[in-house]
């Protein structure tokens, strides 16, 4: 075969490959959306981070403003130290509140920043003082069950107390609000 024809075909082949890679990067992957320019790093301590992972998004008002860069364990405080890389374009006040939330019922966990009212902004290396831990589902369920059990214990002896104390009247709400005397 002619050398020029082979050159042409190989050229088309390589160009197709590059085009497919660009297509994967732009159309399929998140190369265009994930690029965060210059960042500054702040840390936040949590007692429990749940399932938070490095590279999880940091959101404020639902908009991605940064990523979790690293998660370490502080063995003197027994707390998790989470470093957040936040885009330089977004500045947050010093008393910003950091929460760990879950996207959807079973989705990934992310950090939500709720800005406070301080005049001074967070700088590189600062620490976010106010944090709220991840919600642990097992803890919540056990708490709920415990509350339920306590409630039923309070309600069942109520009829006996009502007989003794007629002053409470017939309002059923009183049974719940009145302390057991």
């Amino acid at each position: 075969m002619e050398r020029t024809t082979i050159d042409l075909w190989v050229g088309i082949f390589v160009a197709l490959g590059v085009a497919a890679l660009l297509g994967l990067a732009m159309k399929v992957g998140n190369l265009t959306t994930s690029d965060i320019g210059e960042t500054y790093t702040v840390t936040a301590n949590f007692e429990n981070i749940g399932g938070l992972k490095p590279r999880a998004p940091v959101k404020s008002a639902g908009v991605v403003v940064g990523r979790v860069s690293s998660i370490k364990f502080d063995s003197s405080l027994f707390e998790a130290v989470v470093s957040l890389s936040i885009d330089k374009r977004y500045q947050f006040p010093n008393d910003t509140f950091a929460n760990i939330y879950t996207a959807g019922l079973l989705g990934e966990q992310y950090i939500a920043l709720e800005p406070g009212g301080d005049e001074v902004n967070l700088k590189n290396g600062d620490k976010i003082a106010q944090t709220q831990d991840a919600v642990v589902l097992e803890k919540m369920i056990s708490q709920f069950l415990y509350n339920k059990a306590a409630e039923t214990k309070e309600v069942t002896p109520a009829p006996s107390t009502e007989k003794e104390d007629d002053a409470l009247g017939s309002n059923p709400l009183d049974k719940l609000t009145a302390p057991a005397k």
Partner: protein
Amino acid sequence: MSILMKLIRTLQNIGHRFVDRIWRLGAGGRLFWLTLASSGESLKRPWLVIREVYFTGVLSLIIILVSAFFVGMVLGLQGYNTLQRYGSSEAIGVLVALALVRELGPVVTALLFAGRAGTAITAEIGLMKATEQLSAMEMMAVSPVSRVIAPRFWAGVISMPILATLFSMVGILGGYMVAVPLIGVDAGAFWSQMQANVDWRDDIVNGLIKSVVFGVACTIIALFEGYDAPPTAEGVSRATTRTVVTSSLAVLGLDFVLTSFMITV
């Protein structure tokens, strides 16, 4: 007594096979090293490599693209069938893209490449050896490794990632064709969910790394089997069969090893 002899014979057989395998592995490793060492000469004449890219890469395009399209369409149909039970048929884009970019793209391309281009390389080099073309080159003080082996090696290493990328892209288009116009999944959700969940570094670049490794493995196995084939018609045919079997097993084994390194908890 005869039972003892039989046992000894069997053990000898196993030992011989084992030593033979080890010998072949070592010879393959030496050929790989020799190819790398003498590839400077062949890269100085890029025409040799370009010609081989045409034969291994461009001529494999048809089979790669057609199978990619069908693999993508089947993934779309099967994925939809399962996902719609959980009311999340929009996630079909993520499913198709991740399956193709992470696994099916590199692996199926490598298997098809071994069948389409690997066998051709083995048969060509085996016949060159059988018709004493390689010996003739040596007589003329032309190293067959740098003139014949190295250009084919580099052509395979260049072609594989390009073919795998095309496979992934065309497969995703196949999945799109089934999901959006045929089934009626929303096109916006299809692409946006895909973009939100496919990562450039963790998915696309890792897929590329896999395909480069598979390219090296498939090509060097094909070259070694051809170079090592007994110079007879039967020898070449056996070498061709071994190329397909060995490359396929190597690709699947390497895939597991690479994936376990790439997936960090």
